[in-house]
């Protein structure tokens, strides 16, 4: 009897601890389900592998990796049958690429879930991604390029209460690397489509929504009273009429001080954020105007942590996400602790046959954005200080500004181009957390010409020339990087091949020994839903951002192989 118990215990431990066994069981479940339901169930998924070798290169400050080759990979599997969906993701970091946090280490199945829908109720158990409103108080998402995945693990319910009324609610913990953060999140969101739910026939559509989030984390501070349950809530309004669209959201978060033992570091101030956008468009023309103000709105999955892996809300950057390299050398990052920003976009198409439109029409996009700090910084409240900044003050320290014009034109059947002119101001000291005066603020003027020439059916050659002229707005103690040039030649053969060669040259670096070339060569092969790419070259140290969340990419020199595929 005793032996049997022991055996069972051993088996249980083995089951609990061994990822591979759990994986096999999951696969077998899939396998069983798929064979029993040949007629209606289906399986799909996707795969990605990214392998990079790292060689030391002192000139660009690139480190060699002890492992020589580093590797990130994942495989998603989804099984769906009528109202049921089951999915998992196997992830492998052996070891993680240098631009990923090193806590991504080893293999595992950090993502698995089952979702079932019945009578308007959708039930999810396991991992899920969710966003309330525009994300000001809660967004759980993945951004592989940034190494962000804060998927929730828990239970989520979505329910259609009636026509046009949707409720979402969940409890869960958020993923950080291969484990979960301390905080337990509870949330609910209500969205009402007024026209639909009240059978209200109107040209103008009104959608209102409201969200609530609460994080529980045990208090361990022996001196100060800090809330164990931190609540945040928001309300939003969307009005759509003809070519017009207005969206506004206000969010509030109660005080959430860190576990400090010093009074001066405690901040009992609450946080708030407001975002607003208005859009008008018609055939050939569109305009978007946006603004937001953020004060003390960092919402973490563990109160004492720092780092993007622990951020649970999303405050999008109010600047254009640029696709060309030199336009993105100095990217803007959102300051959740406090900022005030505005953005304007105008899209216009000069019609075919007009002087500016030519034979095919000409498309232009004008974009302007400006983000500055709050007067005196974010709100602060403790026994010694009670401060809240002015509501609107555009005269404060500038963080980032960008004014740019993009022109897209097809000249004839062979030639088309895309040109961008921009002037950006980047407060490097502030945005990169340096000591004031270290790098100062950089003003850069950038020009890009991207020209495609179709040689014959399926064969296209593309040239990209980019130049960045930098100007230091205050003297800095560190060397200025100065001016850059970039050139790219790409030859593509549809539908299978591409070859690219590019060189970035920091010819204007104040330090002559740093006037370096960063050359890269890439070859890609595409077939249906599979893509192979091999590249070799040097990457510059820099900041890479998506949606205002950034990561520091170290300089590197080496070979890169990437394979992505879906089925």
């Amino acid at each position: 009897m005793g032996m049997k118990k022991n055996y069972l215990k051993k088996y249980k431990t083995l089951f609990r601890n061994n990822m591979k066994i759990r994986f096999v069981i999951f696969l077998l479940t899939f396998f069983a389900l798929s064979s029993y339901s040949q007629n209606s169930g289906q399986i799909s998924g996707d795969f990605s592998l990214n392998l990079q070798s790292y060689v030391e290169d002192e000139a660009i400050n690139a480190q060699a990796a002890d492992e020589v080759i580093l590797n990130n990979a994942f495989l998603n599997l989804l099984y769906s049958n009528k109202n049921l969906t089951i999915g998992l993701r196997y992830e492998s970091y052996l070891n993680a690429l240098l631009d990923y946090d090193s806590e991504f280490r080893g293999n595992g199945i950090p993502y698995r879930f089952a979702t079932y829908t019945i009578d308007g109720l959708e039930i999810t158990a396991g991992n899920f991604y969710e966003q309330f409103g525009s994300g000001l108080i809660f967004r759980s998402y993945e951004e592989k390029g940034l190494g962000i995945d804060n998927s929730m693990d828990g239970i989520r319910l979505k329910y259609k209460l009636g026509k046009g009324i949707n409720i979402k609610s969940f409890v869960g913990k958020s993923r950080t690397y291969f484990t979960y953060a301390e905080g337990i999140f509870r949330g609910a969101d209500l969205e009402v489509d007024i026209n639909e739910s009240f059978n209200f026939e109107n040209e103008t559509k009104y959608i209102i929504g409201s969200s609530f989030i609460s994080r529980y984390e045990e208090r361990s501070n022996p001196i100060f009273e800090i809330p164990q349950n931190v609540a945040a809530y928001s309300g939003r309004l969307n009005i759509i009429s003809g070519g017009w669209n207005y969206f506004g959201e206000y969010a509030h978060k109660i005080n959430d001080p860190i576990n400090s033992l010093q009074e001066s570091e405690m901040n009992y101030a609450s946080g708030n954020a407001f975002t607003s956008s208005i859009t008008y468009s018609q055939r050939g023309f569109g305009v978007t105007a946006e603004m937001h103000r953020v004060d003390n709105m960092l919402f973490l999955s563990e109160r004492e942590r720092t780092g993007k892996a622990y951020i649970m809300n999303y405050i999008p950057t109010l600047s254009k996400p640029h696709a060309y390299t030199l336009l993105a050398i100095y990217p803007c990052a959102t300051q959740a602790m406090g900022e005030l920003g505005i953005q304007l976009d105008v899209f216009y198409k000069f019609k075919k046959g007009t002087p500016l439109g030519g034979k095919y029409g000409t498309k232009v996009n004008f974009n302007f954005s400006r983000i500055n700090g709050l007067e005196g910084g974010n709100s602060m409240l403790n026994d010694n200080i009670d401060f809240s900044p002015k509501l609107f003050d555009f005269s404060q320290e500038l963080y980032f500004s960008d004014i740019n014009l993009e022109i897209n034109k097809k000249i004839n059947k062979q030639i088309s181009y895309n040109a961008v002119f921009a002037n950006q101001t980047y407060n490097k000291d502030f945005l990169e957390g340096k000591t004031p005066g270290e790098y100062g603020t950089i003003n850069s003027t950038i020009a890009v010409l991207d020209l495609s020439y179709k040689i014959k059916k399926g064969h296209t050659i593309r040239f990209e020339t980019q130049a960045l002229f930098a100007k230091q707005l205050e003297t800095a103690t560190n060397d200025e990087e100065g001016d850059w040039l970039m050139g790219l030649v790409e030859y593509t053969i549809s539908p299978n091949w591409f070859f690219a060669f590019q060189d970035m040259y920091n010819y204007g670096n104040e330090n002559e020994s740093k006037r370096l070339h960063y050359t890269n060569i890439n070859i890609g092969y595409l077939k249906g839903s599979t893509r192979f790419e091999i590249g070799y070259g040097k990457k510059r140290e820099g900041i890479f951002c998506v949606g205002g969340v950034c990561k520091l990419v170290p300089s590197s020199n080496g070979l890169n192989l990437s394979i992505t595929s879906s089925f």
Partner: protein
Amino acid sequence: MKKALIIFSTLFLIANTNAQEKSLPNIEVKTLKGKTFNIQDLDNEGSPMVMSFWATWCKPCKKELNAIAEVYEDWQDETGVKLIAISIDDSRSMSKVAPYVNSSDWEYEIYLDQNSDLKRAMGVSTVPHTFLINGNGKIVWNHKGYIDGDEEKLFEEIQNLVSK
């Protein structure tokens, strides 16, 4: 042994799947007018549909959809095809979708997949990613990425489908 089993079962699963034509997932997206729309309700009266995942910040995506826009009328006349463009823009750039689409004169059906639910359900890891859906709503072909001229290959696939 365990490894072999993993590899074997994975391969088996893949082999098993390729044999079937896939249907669209049961996922809700939003229209530009704020309406909720279940992607399984897509319909083109028995004619094929092209579903293209794109974003306002994605250069090759816009290149692809602008290239198709020029020949879209001809494609429609010849094959009755309809193009569904799924924007994966999140709250940073979502408000630019309608101005971009309208100013570009696109005649496509546009949907917003703000939380990437549809993107995940269809195994889309990078944009652009284009799917061809037959008259019965089954996915019959798909292609990752866009390089100049790819739209001609896509049109051949549509023609093959229609002439079947």
